[in-house]
């Protein structure tokens, strides 16, 4: 099988993983002229595919052969999908060649389980090791941790990777047991905790080393601790393959952010897969549900919303309104707010006001009373905020909020080639 065929199969097999982020790593460059690549902590999307997703990393499986039989997975043992396996040098070569073209920030490598979890993990790590140690590759590397891989292998993976991830896959342990008999929710979380503890230790070591370096007379490069996954860890769960509702999903995310220190939880709307098991729904989960979960996740992380209050309807987020508007409509007693007086955390709950807009209003109101024109100057999205705010020359009319509650017209996707 030639490289083109392998790439087609092993990229196709990797596309159900939502993450392609390349942000949050250390700052590196190749100005020493020994290698190639740079990272600056911000991710770059080098292209977008017609599914609206960002291409930031070469996202492939090392192999899609797998000894597990997870029903939701296109690569499960009993699936009739075409199989391929990359040689380690082939992945290294593809990464460097794509990087030179400036189409990727680095590599996101995962794999089906072959022989044993440890053997598979070793193969994955060897790709990263060659990139880092032989090619002096300074770009971004994301490695998928194989559940139940040994602590020593997790340690080695973290030495080469910017980010590690391990997928919780399904929102409940019972669903996982039913759909992925070889996987075990406890084992996945144990691995996650192990990575979390190791990340905390690395951060601690770095803080101490910085404190030592700050002392007078110490060489600037003294005692730099070895890096461990500087971009942290993330996970993914599939939505719509089991009966879990949005409240259960968001409570799980909330717990993972808090207790496992995750950087990101990715939600992947269940997408029908070729040769699907009859135990799975035949329809794709609505992409809108996935979108609402991302919005709610964002509000939990940056806007001070709790996992319980954000789901305003029975168990599920509103599909009609975004979660912030849905919350505001469900809490008429919280509005209108005086834009000259309301505290920051209250303004953050106003539909149409983002963190940037709120901070601009706070800065501007130090100097003068704010007017309707100032709200409009924030941009088109802020128009949505008018019914919820009072300003020197602005007062919402009765009925403005109700007008927002009307069903919005369903947005039609623009035809590309009409």
């Amino acid at each position, binding site marked *: 099988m030639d490289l083109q065929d392998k*790439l087609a199969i092993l990229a196709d097999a990797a*596309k159900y993983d939502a993450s392609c982020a390349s942000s949050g790593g250390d700052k590196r460059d*190749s100005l020493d002229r020994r290698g190639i690549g740079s990272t600056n902590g911000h991710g770059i999307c080098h292209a977008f*595919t017609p*599914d609206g997703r960002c291409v930031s990393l070469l996202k492939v499986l090392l192999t899609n052969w797998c000894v597990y039989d997870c029903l939701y997975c296109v690569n499960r043992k009993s699936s009739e999908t075409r199989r391929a396996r990359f040689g380690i040098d082939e992945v290294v070569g593809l990464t460097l060649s794509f990087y030179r073209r400036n189409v990727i920030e680095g590599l996101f490598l995962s794999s089906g389980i072959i022989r044993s979890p440890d053997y598979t993990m070793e193969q994955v790590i060897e790709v990263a090791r060659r990139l880092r140690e032989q090619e002096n590759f300074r770009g971004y590397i994301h490695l998928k941790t194989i559940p139940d891989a040994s602590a020593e292998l997790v340690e080695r993976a973290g030495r080469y990777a910017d980010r590690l991830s391990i997928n919780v896959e399904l929102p409940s342990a019972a669903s996982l047991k039913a759909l992925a008999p070889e996987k075990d929710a406890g084992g996945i979380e144990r691995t996650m905790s192990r990575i979390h503890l190791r990340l905390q230790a690395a951060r601690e070591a770095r803080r101490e080393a910085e404190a030592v370096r700050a002392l007078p007379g110490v060489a600037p490069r003294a005692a730099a601790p070895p890096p461990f996954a500087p971009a942290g860890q993330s996970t993914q769960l599939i939505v719509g393959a089991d009966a879990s509702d949005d409240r259960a999903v968001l409570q799980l995310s909330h717990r993972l952010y808090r207790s496992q220190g995750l950087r990101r939880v990715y939600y992947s709307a269940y997408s029908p897969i070729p040769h699907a098991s009859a135990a799975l729904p035949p329809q794709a989960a609505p992409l809108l549900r996935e979108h609402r979960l991302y919005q709610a996740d964002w509000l939990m992380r940056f806007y001070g919303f709790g996992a319980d209050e954000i789901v305003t309807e029975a168990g599920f987020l509103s599909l009609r309104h975004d979660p912030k508007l849905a919350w505001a409509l469900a809490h008429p007693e919280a509005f209108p707010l005086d834009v000259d007086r309301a505290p920051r955390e209250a303004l953050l709950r106003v539909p149409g006001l983002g963190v940037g807009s709120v901070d601009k209003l706070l800065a*501007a109101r130090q100097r003068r009373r704010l007017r309707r024109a100032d709200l409009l100057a924030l941009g088109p999205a802020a128009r949505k905020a008018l019914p919820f705010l009072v300003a020197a020359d602005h007062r919402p009319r009765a009925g403005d909020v109700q007008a927002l509650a009307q069903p919005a017209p369903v947005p039609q*996707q623009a035809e590309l*080639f009409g």
Partner: protein
Amino acid sequence: MKLPLRHPSDWDGFAAQLPTLLAGGDAGWTRDVGAQAALFGEAAEGGTQVWVPPGDWDELGRRVAMHADDTRYARLLAFARRLQAEPALWHDVLDVERRRLESMARQVGREIHKMHAFVRFREVTDEQAAGGHRHVAWFEPAHHVLRAVAPFFVRRFAQHPWAILTPLGCLHWDGQRLSGAGPARREDAPPEDAGEALWLTYYRSIFNPARLKVAAMKKEMPVRYWALMPETRQISELVRAAPRREGQMRGA
């Protein structure tokens, strides 16, 4: 009057002249001064610094100076006049003209980011280059951002020779030194190389036809960049075939 700018985005040249201009010597500053500045010309004439601008003025001005709008320098000058008369104006982040300048700076920042992302290098044989080849790209920036993107590519590909050709000027990195050159034509860009087919295959394969969202793609990757990116030639076919492929995924 001799134009005081070395190139269209010569913020330092403009900033050096600003005290003179604020003192009333603005006779030659017409709205199209940005359009008249030569790409690579004489050094700017110095001026004496009197007005002390606010802290972030330099950062804002440097970005605005890269904008393609020919009124950019006139706008900066007009705003500097108001600031000089009323320094507290700087803290009014909702002032209409301030918002306009910020918006121009954001457009420039976005163009820099998109250029970092969307430049596509192709391999070209070059006996003289270290390693026997160079990587050369063709790009058409909407603003005068060529100089601003150079450090990114130098840090990333420091030991590899590369060039970026644009209709507004070129950048050449030989592994040691960065140099500029005048405008290039599209015909100067290299043709498809041997490795490009693998990238095209990857782009096709990582697309999930069950999640077609063309509007989201076009929002992040506006159509005006497509001619610069080889993979986008496949988009129409991917979109056309998506419903059939999704049916196959679900059927079977």
